């Protein structure tokens, strides 16, 4: 168990590799109750959501979710979040555990609208059921037909009789579901999902597998690929910024940076020489330090050592020869387009 933002969480239950492969090939179950939830309600809930986030929440239908960013005025990330539109006057935000209080304060500070904001993390536990057999597993426990549910949609229903918000979302690059439930029901539902998934080979999965899975899918992790000094343009997250939706926090800075041009950009790499590029390692080109690794490690699915790094824009294209400084030794690597892994649909 490790301390993760104040939560005691298992890095692995048995074997990180077995857990990783279970999610790619069958199904895995994650306890992600540490994730935070913020609820925004009221007649101007949408106005507040659209003012504090980068994506356009006005495009959402009830029962639909979107990936989005919370930015500072200077354009750096406060957090990356999921915005769920429950009803016209009720939005449900899923935020990173360690950022929950900061996010809540940020949203409240910019609440110049008729909206109520609640830091609701204590009212929700969250379980993620991920992998090609996630649907078969969860379907045994819910009356809602899951197959017709589209990716990034959700429904309020029940799991094993307990009220649950069931979303077809995830952080693994596989099909799957994230369910938001009452903490009082969490242990029972965990056990029931394990039983329901037994015939499909379900495995409880820890933070370690969650990290290797999301890295293969090249999904950002806060404090690694994104943080207060990184903008969406730099992090290849321009697709979650809708500049034409109206004003929002960080818009001016993003507009300015777009006109001036960015100087660095996130790009994938794979190690060519022996060694593993890890978070924080320096990246060199032609003997000169030019960037840094944001996340790196072995890819269990691809059997390669992969990572993400920031490089000057001119070098942040696929196919460039770079060196990663692995504890004082320059090890050859090659930049790659991401994601490293994409599931076949």
């Amino acid at each position: 168990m490790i301390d993760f933002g104040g939560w005691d969480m298992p890095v692995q239950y048995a074997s990180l590799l077995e857990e990783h492969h279970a999610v790619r090939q069958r199904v895995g179950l994650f306890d992600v109750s540490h994730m935070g939830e913020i609820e925004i309600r009221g007649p101007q809930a949408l106005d507040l959501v659209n003012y504090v986030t980068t994506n356009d929440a006005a495009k959402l239908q009830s029962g639909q979710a979107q990936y989005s960013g919370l930015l500072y005025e200077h354009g750096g990330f406060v957090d990356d979040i999921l915005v769920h539109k429950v009803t016209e006057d009720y939005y449900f935000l899923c935020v990173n555990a360690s950022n929950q209080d900061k996010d809540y304060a940020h949203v409240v500070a910019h609440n110049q609208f008729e909206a109520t904001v609640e830091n609701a993390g204590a009212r929700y536990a969250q379980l993620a059921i991920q992998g090609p057999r996630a649907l078969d597993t969860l379907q045994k426990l819910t009356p809602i037909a899951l197959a017709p549910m589209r990716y990034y949609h959700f429904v309020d229903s029940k799991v094993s009789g307990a009220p649950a918000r069931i979303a077809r979302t995830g952080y693994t690059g596989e099909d799957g579901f994230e369910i938001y439930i009452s903490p009082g029901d969490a242990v029972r539902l965990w056990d029931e999902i394990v039983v329901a998934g037994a015939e499909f080979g379900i495995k409880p999965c820890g933070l370690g597998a969650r990290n290797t899975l999301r890295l293969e899918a090249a999904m950002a992790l806060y404090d690694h690929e994104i943080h207060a000094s990184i903008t969406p343009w730099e992090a290849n997250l321009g697709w979650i910024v809708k500049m034409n939706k109206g004003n929002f926090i960080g818009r001016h800075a993003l507009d300015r940076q777009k006109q001036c041009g960015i100087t660095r950009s996130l790009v994938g790499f794979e190690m060519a020489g022996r060694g593993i590029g890890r978070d924080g390692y320096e990246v060199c080109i032609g003997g000169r330090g030019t960037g840094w690794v944001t996340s790196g490690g072995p890819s269990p699915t691809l059997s390669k050592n992969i990572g993400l790094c920031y490089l000057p824009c001119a070098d942040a294209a696929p196919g460039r020869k770079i060196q990663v400084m692995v504890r004082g030794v320059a090890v050859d690597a090659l930049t790659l387009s991401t994601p490293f892994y994409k599931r076949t649909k």
Partner: protein
Amino acid sequence: MDPENLRYTKEHEWVRVEGDIGIIGITFHAQKELGDIVYVDLPKAGTSTQQGKTVGSVESVKAVSDLYTPVSGEVVEVNPLLAESPEILNTDPYGSGWLVKIKLSDPGEAGKLLTAAEYQAYTGTESL
């Protein structure tokens, strides 16, 4: 291979002395904490080293950990299996997963390291 008769460091290495040779590895506890080991970086034969110095590293999927030698001397043999099969550090840390053999320059050093009982007390685990 009986872990009871080895000597241990607080950095979770073990050493077994056979004549003037010390055989070095990492403990069961160490491999369990690291998880699935994917890469081992070891010194070449002929390298001279001193007790407590970094001689390499062990990497698992999730982390990298330095290796410190429990004894001083010259590396005379490196486990040839580890380059291709680092996972034997997980499955057999006290046997086929040994790391290097060192020709001891100070045969008295090993005796000052932790005994099995002391190491168990240090890690707070029952198993070695």
